[in-house]
């Protein structure tokens, strides 16, 4: 059996790569898939804290590559789901401690054991990016609906196409209210500009902040809108056809008026 290695990348920092990696890993593991997440951000590791596994690190990616430990010794099994594993990054080395060829070999080894190997890519397009994409069969590009993030995503898409890596897009932190008002690019705008297949949309959700504070990915709780979005994306990744909700719908004049009135009444306490 050979699994799939998927790199989660964006170009720009701070758009939610690590959050997406943690939540997609959590969803796929809960669906019964065996998942390994690699934190490829050597020197600036973060996936461990987002997952709440920071106290369990003994060995890391660079230890495995340098042969200081066996791969199995470095893998941390998640405390919530036994299908989910993390290979943490080193916090003391720099990106040059790893070569693309070594990452390719590592992904090969992991693909024999795991259905999904998710690689959390560092920001930028330098060595760290080249390492993270080296072993990937496909890429999930994360962007927010903002000019800077979309511009960087376009650059990354160009680089990945040159390497013949299949790409899909996740639009993260879409604010439906801003979209309705015409103050945020909607999903169609972003797809038109980037000309890429849409894998899913994650609405802006306070639940992400709360779950990251706790080190418990949103995808492990059901109450958040963002979790529902990640569950849909997980099903799409596994090949199911799941409709993408349209966050840019205006609704009729009367339904909008009704909503505005009820909002106003609630605010003023009428």
């Amino acid at each position, binding site marked *: 059996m050979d699994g799939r290695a998927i790199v989660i990348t964006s170009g720009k920092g701070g758009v939610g790569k690590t959050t997406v990696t943690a939540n997609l890993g959590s969803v796929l593991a809960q669906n019964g898939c065996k998942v390994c997440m690699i934190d490829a951000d050597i020197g600036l590791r973060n996936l461990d804290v987002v997952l709440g596994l920071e106290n369990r690190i003994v060995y890391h990616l660079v230890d495995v590559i340098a042969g200081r430990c066996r791969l199995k010794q470095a893998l941390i099994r998640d405390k919530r789901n036994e299908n989910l594993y993390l290979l943490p990054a080193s916090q003391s080395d720099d990106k040059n401690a790893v070569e693309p060829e070594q990452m390719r070999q590592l992904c090969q080894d992991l693909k024999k054991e795991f259905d999904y190997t998710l690689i959390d890519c560092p920001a930028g397009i330098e060595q760290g990016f080249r390492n993270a994409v080296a072993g990937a069969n496909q890429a999930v590009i994360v962007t927010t609906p903002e*000019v800077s993030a979309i*511009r960087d995503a376009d650059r990354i898409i160009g680089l990945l196409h040159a390497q013949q890596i299949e790409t899909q897009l996740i639009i993260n932190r879409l604010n439906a209210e801003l979209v309705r008002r*015409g*103050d945020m*690019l909607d999903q169609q*705008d972003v797809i038109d500009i980037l000309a890429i297949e849409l894998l899913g949309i994650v609405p802006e959700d306070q639940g992400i902040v709360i779950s990251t504070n706790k080190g418990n990915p949103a995808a492990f709780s059901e109450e958040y809108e963002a979790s529902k979005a990640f569950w849909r994306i997980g099903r799409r990744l596994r090949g199911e056809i799941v409709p993408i909700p349209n966050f840019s719908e205006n609704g009729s004049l009367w339904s909008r008026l009704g909503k505005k009135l009820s909002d106003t009444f609630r605010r003023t306490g009428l």
Partner: protein
Amino acid sequence: MTAIAEMVRKWFGKGDDGDSKNIAKDRLRLVLVHDRSMLPPETLDALRSELIEVVSRYFEVDNATLSMDVQRTRESWALMVNLPLRRARSAS
């Protein structure tokens, strides 16, 4: 009157804001045309020699005089090529 207009404006979210996404879209389109047109030097050299090759089928040209430039205006990007011709090649 103004109070009512203000309320209606707030209800429907139209007024000062409400159209910035179109500004974002236009700006992105322009900047991406630029980003995507940035070619590595090898590619530019290849374009240059292929251009000369094609034009040489129809005209006698001086290879050394070709000048190539990508020009940007607010509305568009254009490849400007200047290649002085010596004479047309005969029809045969």
